[in-house]
Structures are given as C-alpha cells and as structure tokens.
C-alpha cells in the first residue's frame, strides 16, 4: 500500500505544533499501525530526520500506553481495539491518514504524539483503592461469597486500561467513563462498599480539579473505548454520587 500520512509534530510542551506530510510506501495489510510508524521512523532516521515520537509498550492492547487520534477517531477506525492492535488491512491503497495526539486540556502534549496522562493517576490516588494493609493477614479469600454476576460486572469495569480514548472522544473532554469504571469496580464488591461514599466524592472532585469537562451523555466515549467499558458505569457512578451527597 501507498499512503499519505499527515502527522502532528511538536518539539516539546512549550512549542507550537503543526501537521506535516509524510508519504509512505510498501505497507502490508498484516502490519499493525505502530509497525507502520516503525517503518516510517526507520526511513526518517536513515534520512537524518527526527523520528515521530509516540507512546507504546505492550503492543497487545493491555497496557494502555498507546493512544493516537487517527482520522479523528481515538485508536482509529476499528472497534474494540487499541492503536497497537489496529492493523493496516483496515486502510486502502492511496488513503490519507491524519494522525494527532489525544486532545484534552488535562492531557498536555509532551512531544509529537506523546501526551501526559498523569491526571488519571491523580484521580486514582485520591480514592481508587480499598484501604487494607498489604503486609498483614486477612480473612480467607472464600470467607465472603460474591454473586457471580456482580463479580463479573466488577471485573468488566476493572478492565479499563487507562488509555484516555474516552476523554479524546468526548467533545467536553470528560473523564466520566474512566472514573466511573473504577468507582464501579469497587462499588460492586462487598469489600469496596465500606469506603464507597468517600471514594466517589473524592474521585469526582479530583476529576473536576484536573480540568476534565462535564458529561453531557453523548455516549461517544463508549463507542471509542477499546475495552468496551459500558455507559452503565456512568449511570452507576451518578447514583453513587447522588446517594453520597444525600448522606452528606
């Protein structure tokens, strides 16, 4: 395949960025999107130019490092995949592909396509845990049976990889899907109920402090989420938040 890439280049956080054109040749359908960028980078380095920087690590859709807004969509045109799992067979010979970083005030650009998602860490730090000590003994794991359906829902919420596509997909750059997934994971488990009130309030407060926007229920986040995190989590978090407020 022959493609015309338009890629966001930005020297560092302070510089202004711009789109640049990079024609590329010889791309196979079985290559992953990031392998296509590897080929481009190899060409650039060989020509003495600077390679395009992007975040990636596991390249199997689980670490949440990779991002990229591809033709306007976070993680590109395929559904339920991250950019590293997107394959070039989804594109056609002669296509123009526009590649930008995830855009959000709370995700400043570090360089080119690399962004700073530490706001997500800070949301988790204010309450994304159950306050049990890790050094001591605790009760037997089977002491508290948990309804399979609830355990499964908790698991599905917990499969969020923290990539930030939900934020990039949202016109308000809201982080509701991400935050609600963590709130839900714990809200659905008996172990997590103990601190539920405090947790939802702190995490929502931090989310607002970080500069993420409001949720206006467009559902764009769910569509673009590579892990299929469901909007039900947002509804659950809203209920949790409301009841926390009522409790004061």
């Amino acid at each position, binding site marked *: 395949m022959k493609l015309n890439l338009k890629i966001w280049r930005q*020297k*560092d956080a302070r510089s202004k960025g711009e789109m640049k054109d990079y024609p590329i040749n010889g791309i196979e359908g*079985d*290559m*992953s999107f*990031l*392998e296509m960028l*590897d080929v481009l980078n*190899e060409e650039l*380095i*060989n020509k003495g*130019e*600077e*390679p395009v*920087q992007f*975040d990636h*690590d*596991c*390249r*199997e*859709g*689980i*670490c*949440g*490092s990779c991002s990229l807004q591809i033709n306007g969509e976070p993680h590109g045109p*395929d559904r*339920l995949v991250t950019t590293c*799992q997107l*394959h070039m067979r989804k594109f056609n010979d002669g296509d123009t592909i526009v590649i930008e970083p995830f855009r959000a005030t709370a995700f400043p650009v570090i*360089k080119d396509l690399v962004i*700073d*998602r530490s706001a*997500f*860490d800070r949301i*988790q*730090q204010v309450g*994304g*845990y*159950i306050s*049990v000590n*890790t*050094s001591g*003994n*605790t*009760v037997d*794991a*089977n002491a508290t*049976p*948990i309804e*399979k359906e609830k*355990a*499964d829902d*908790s*698991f599905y919420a*917990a499969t969020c990889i*923290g990539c930030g596509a939900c934020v990039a997909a949202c016109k308000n750059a809201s982080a509701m899907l991400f935050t609600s997934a963590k709130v839900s*994971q*714990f809200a659905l*488990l008996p*172990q997590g109920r103990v601190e539920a009130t405090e947790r939802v309030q702190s995490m929502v407060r931090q989310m607002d402090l970080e500069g993420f926007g409001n949720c206006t229920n467009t559902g764009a986040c769910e569509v673009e989420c590579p892990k299929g995190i469901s909007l039900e989590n947002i509804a659950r978090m809203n209920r949790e938040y409301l009841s926390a407020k009522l409790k004061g």
Partner: protein
Amino acid sequence: MSELNAKIPVGPLAEKWTTYKNSINLISPANKRSLDVIVVGTGLAGGSAAATLAELGYNVKAFCFQDSPRRAHSVAAQGGINAAKNYTGDGDSVYRLFYDTIKGGDYRSREANVYRLAEVSSNIIDQCVAQGVPFAREYGGLLANRSFGGVQVSRTFYAKGQTGQQLLLGVYSALNRQIARGKIEMFNRHEMLDVVLLGDKARGIISRNLVSGAIDRHSAHAVVIASGGYGNLFYLSTYAMGCNASAAWKAHKRGAFLANPCFNQIHPTAIPVGGPNQSKLTLMSESLRNDGRIWVPKDQEDAKALREGVKQPNDIADADRDYYLERQYPAFGNLVPRDVASRAAKERCDAGYGVNVTGQAVFLDFHSAIYRFGKEQARIKGLDTDDDRLITRLGEEVIKGKYGNLFQMYQKIIDQDPYKTPMMIYPTTHYTMGGLWVDYNLMTTVPGLFAIGEANFSDHGANRLGASALMQGLADGYFILPYTIGDYLSQDIGTGKIPTTTIEFEEAELQVTERIHRLINNKGSHPVDYFHKKLGTIMWQYCGINRNKKGLETAMEEIKSVRLAFWENAIVPGTAEEFNEELAKAGRLADFLELAELYAKDALFREESCGAHMREEFRTTDGEALRNDTDFAHVAAWEYKGEPRNALLHKEKLVYENIEVKQRSYR
C-alpha cells in the same frame, strides 16, 4: 571460583520461614521513618514491595520507565496465579506446590526458597480479594480455579485472560494509597542507569528523566531491583517493547552476580511471526491448553497442502491428525510443561509437518471442547442434545466466557475466527528464569542491593511452570522482602540520610552522561533496531530452544561483533536533553549486547540439558533433557570482570533433602 552461601536458615524445611521470622531483628516504627528505600520497577514485584514498605513506615522512592505504574509488563500476564488453597479438594497442598515447582524447574532451584513461596501463596489470594481484585467466581459465589501445565491439580486463580492486569491494578491501588499518604515518591518516566555503592554497600542510583533528559542522583539505605526479565534479548518475544536488562546489568557490573543467564523460557503458544516488520509477538495463554488440543497433520502431503493454502484445517479428518502431545505424553497430554511442549512443536515443524505459510506453526484446536461444553450446557438447560448447531453455539459461549479476550486478540491479529478454524501457534521467548543471584534474604552479592520478581533467579530453576511468576512477584513484594530487608536495615538506624554529594555519586553520574553523549554523537549509518534485530537472529538461532557447543561458540563471536558494530555504526537522532526514545532504546541495547554474550557463555559451560536448556549433545534416547547431577547440580553465578566473556564463575551447590531427585517424566 568460590562456593556461594545462600544463608538458608537451619531446621526442618516446613519451619524455616517461621523460625527465620521469629529470629530476625525488628525496627521500631519511629526508626523506620528515618530509613529510605529505593525500588526500581513497579510491576507486581516492585509495586507490591514499595506499597508494603511504605505502609510499614519506610520512606520509599519508586521508579518506572512507563508513564504510570499501571502499565508495567505484569499487566500483560493472561492465564492466572497459583496458590496452594486446595479449594477444589483435589489433593493440593503446600508440599505438592513445592514439589511440582522443583520438578517443573528440573531440579535446578533452591528448596528453601521454593518451599517458602508455596507457603505464602495462599495468603496472596486472600490479600488480593481483600483489595478488590475481581477474580473469576463460580455460580455459588466462591472463587474458580483452573489447571496449568506440568501439574495434575487445579490451583490456578484467574480473571479471564487478564489476570496480570487485575493483579497489577490491585498493586497500583495499594501504591496509590501510599503515594497519597506521601510515603512513596513515585518517579514515572524515569530510567535507572546505574547503582551507586558507598564502600561495599548499595546506597543509591542514577536516573534519567525520560521527558526532560535530566540526570539525577537518589540516595537510600537500600536499593531494590524489580525491573523484570531480559527476554527482549531475542528482539521478538512476548515482552513489551521497553522491557530491558539495564537495571540488572548495571547491578551486575557493580558487583552483583548474575545467575543462570541461559535459563530462558520459550513459551509454546504464541501467535507465529508474520513478516519482516514484525515488532513483537503476542502470547496465547497456556490456560488455552486446558481446552485446546494441539495437532499437526499425520501426513506431510497434508501439511504441504495446508502451507500452500490448497487445504484448510477443517479439511483434515480427525483420523488424519496427529495430536502429538497426547500421543507422546499420555499422562499430561496437552498440559505438559512449556519446555517439553515447545521442543515438541519445533521437532514436528522441523520434520516437515508445520502448517502456516512459513511452516513454523502448529494448530491449537478448540473444536472438541466446544462440542463437549455445548453438549453439557444443552443437557443442563434441558435442550436438544442432538442439535449440532445449538451445541456449537452453546459451546462457543462457554469458550468465550473463559477466553473471550484471547480469541478477540487472535482474530484481530490473524484476521481469522478461532471459534471456527483452529489457532496457529509457535514457540517464542517469554520469561527468563535466570537473573540476579540472591540469597534466602533476596539480597544480591552486593550488601543492601536486593532483587525481586523476574529480575532475580531464585525460584524457577531451569523451567518455570505456568502461573507461578505472578505468585513469585507478589510473594517477594508483599510478604518476603518486607521482612528480610528489615533485618538488613536494622543496622542502619543510626546512619542518617545518605548524602548524594560524595565522589562515588559524582563518578557514577559522570559515567552515565559520558555514555549518553557517546551514543548521541555517534554519526553512524544504521538505526538501533537494525542491530537489535541482528542480535535477535543470533539468539534464536544458537541460544533458543536447542543449543550446542559449536553454535554457542559462534554466538559468542557474533554477538561481540554486533556489539562492536553497534558502537561504531548506530545512529541516535535528536539530543540528550529531550524526550528521545531512540536514545533510551540505544542504551538498553548496549546492555543487551553485553548480557547476551554472558548468556551464551553460561549455556556453553552448562554441559548438560535441564528444563529449557537443551544441549543437543545431552539427550536421553527419547529425546528428553538429560541432566548431569554429578557435575551441574548447582547455580552458576557469574561475577563481572571487564568483558562479558571474562566473567568468573561461582557455584551455589543445590542440595535436595526433602525431595527425591529423579529424571523428569511427563509420559
């Protein structure tokens, strides 16, 4: 050469750990507050250690190269974590888990450490459940279990195909709790580039900020290396792109012995290599071998037809399929240990029975399982048990419930539906049993320098059993290191803050900056990956599934020449004072190119076959690994002496008092 002392406590095996805990020095909470610990790496091992140490009261500085601890490569572990809970009542016990692990490791691991691991295993599950890790459950609400290779009980706990992710998020939450309390200072996007010794003790590290390029000094009373494995030596592997040996290799160069570097696990079930631009390989979890059956055609003509696309897998009748693991190993069938399964796949493919275009693949087939589960479901639900379409649909739902995400990954990569057509798989590098030598305290040969998780060598001998790395990482971090490091630190309660202004810090920093400048100013002609791919090819050819004397000697020479070529000819674009991935990659590869040579040397010196280390010269008549317990029942621990090939061998003799050492058999 000297004999190494592992400092194993005296007394009966089952009482060693308890006796040890009762006899070590304790530190009062007030004194812990004046002690600093650096933890390099926040995967399962480092993250759990950092959280627990902080909770105990120590001041912790933790480092990872990713932008968040949640992304450590532990996140990618799929299948599960072992624990001797015996919830299924199938006869499991601490002793059996201990026994299976020693046997699985082909009698090349240390009894006392493995027993302790088995002993604390069940506490890990309790701990994780308390933290809200959503493990798979049965309809009755209790935890579910499955089986892994090399064992005959079901002791593996799991969260679908995302067990590592769920365990790591548990660790990440514990870390966050301590970060919020101010007890852990977390350095994301930081890479450790050297260990600093004051006198003979590890007292700090030099790090590079991967965003700004800043080089910093950090001091502490002890340093813990938890930086994971070095399988990326092979270029293609199931490791993440950033996984590296630099932290461990730098520790080695500062005096920590490196043990059994050639013990490297080749996992039998990864998605095969597709083309020349492939950048990494994706694992298909071993748990799939619970339900998938491995086969190639009985007839070479059929294999040829499959390779040429003239026939499809479903065109081969059941009678014409060779379920070679079931045939050769009736007792364990498809669940033989990884080393055995990998060699068998290679043997079949080399003999001309391989199935994809390259001839380097075998099938993993779920058809029988889908049928079996479907029939069971139809019976439970009172539906028609003769309706094949219904049975297939019900069976596929069960398989989806167990392995859904793995099937989806396969489908996205290969563009085929594994519910309908068998998966194609082939062995690839996956885990390194070798690593920094540690004693019973998890301390390396450098006082105050500890190593945990995949970065150390301790528990898996010559072959790791599935679902035991997650167990080891969490055991080391949550339950073992917090005790053993306390015993060491008790001598430091009066020491006070360690200064970073000493000559040792200055020199280490200077060496780090000089190397970076050498890399960045090298006006070479090839990008870093060019050399990494060359190294990978050498490793796979001579140091992979099978090895022999001549090949290993060749490997040592070729690795050295790639190393020289790299330093002469690598291009590293950009500058050192910015985000520069090529620079980070160059530094990691430079270390791999040294470690690789020692790996080959270790494999050359070990003139026997054991576990994953298969020397073609030492095989039983059945083609299995032939150990030489008289000469090689030891850990080979190498001391750095300038060039990798000049490393000096030290031995730790392995003594088995509680297990009868036998020829391993899974037939």
